[in-house]
């Protein structure tokens, strides 16, 4: 695959923090139209990698190309990044959060927003401060999926939420994912119950890639679920 056809190309990416080498030369190529699972325990470098791709962390070395060009402020429309930390203003209502976010992006889709709100069973008049953790996770997903960004990065969207919210989020992603024109990376350290969502997986271990491949091919060649492989690699 040449770089122009790929949604994302990462070459020899390195990032060192004062106390830890978070990324030790990561190289990846993601084709368009796929959902990738970025899997690894806490501290394996998943968030750092996503933040570098989103242009929020400056790498120490290596190259990143999103649809053939390096990420930049001017190209923010191309990436929807949902961080693990909560950036929602708690005093806002759900509707205010949506209006506030929509104002930043020209690719905001009103009809997608309506569909997603309904599907996620979010009340537009509810205050963010009154929402459960699961409902706030649903709202964060709406913010990413209501746009038409070609590259969507979700950092730990399933972390610490109830199973029903997790199922809604998985189904919401499947329903709203726009096939060929989008590509998604989802990081998680809890693989069970979400592995059927991924086309391909990358196992990140202490800043290096421990295993990667098409999920169905890995199941065939290893005779194991991705969850079991995960346990094996990170035992």
């Amino acid at each position, binding site marked *: 695959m040449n770089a122009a056809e790929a949604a994302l190309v990462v070459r020899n990416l390195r990032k060192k923090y004062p106390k830890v080498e978070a990324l030790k030369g990561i190289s990846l190529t993601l084709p368009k*139209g*796929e*959902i990738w699972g970025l899997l690894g325990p806490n501290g394996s470098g998943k968030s750092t990698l996503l933040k570098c791709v989103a242009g929020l962390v400056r790498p120490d070395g290596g190259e990143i190309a999103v649809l053939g060009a390096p990420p930049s402020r001017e190209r923010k429309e191309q990436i929807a990044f949902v961080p693990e930390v909560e950036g929602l203003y708690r005093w806002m209502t759900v509707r205010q959060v949506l209006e506030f976010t929509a104002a930043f992006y020209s690719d905001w889709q009103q009809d997608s927003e309506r569909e997603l709100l309904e599907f996620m069973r979010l009340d537009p008049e509810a205050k963010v401060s009154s929402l459960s953790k699961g409902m706030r996770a649903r709202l964060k997903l709406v913010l990413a999926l209501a746009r038409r960004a070609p590259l969507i990065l979700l950092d730990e969207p399933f972390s610490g939420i109830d199973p029903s919210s997790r*199922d809604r989020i*998985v*189904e919401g992603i*499947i*329903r709203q*994912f726009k*096939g060929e024109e989008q590509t998604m990376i989802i990081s998680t350290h809890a693989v069970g119950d979400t*592995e*059927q*969502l*991924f*086309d391909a997986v990358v196992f990140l271990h202490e800043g290096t890639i421990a295993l990667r491949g098409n*999920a*169905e091919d890995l*199941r*065939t060649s290893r*005779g*194991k*679920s*991705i*969850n*079991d492989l995960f346990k094996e690699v990170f035992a």
Partner: protein
Amino acid sequence: MDLDFSTSIPIYLQIIAEFKRQIATGLLKPGDKLPSQRDLAAQLKVNANTVQRAYREMEILGLVETLRGQGTFVRQTEEIVEGTRDEMLTKLVDDFVAAMLSLGLTMGDTLELVKSRFRELEMAKGGLTDERS
């Protein structure tokens, strides 16, 4: 379709197996329309490309055909239905025989067991019919 996945087996193969079962048991008949790939993906909560792969394989196997703009349909081929049925029966019998052998039963024991079970089921069925009339 309701599938309880074993994620250690490729998911697209499990989707194909379920369609084969539905075709062989007559739940899906030649000419019936399959759900759209996107709907099935959402229903099963699996990646849409996985469903696409299952549909593509089933086309290659001649189980279904996709008509542009209309959807995917079960093919009108009796041989395929029979072939699938034979395939399923063979697998069921193989699994059963293997289980009996692992329990240390002989062919004679097994046949007796099967015969008596058939008789019981038929009696139960007959009993029900009598009650109704």
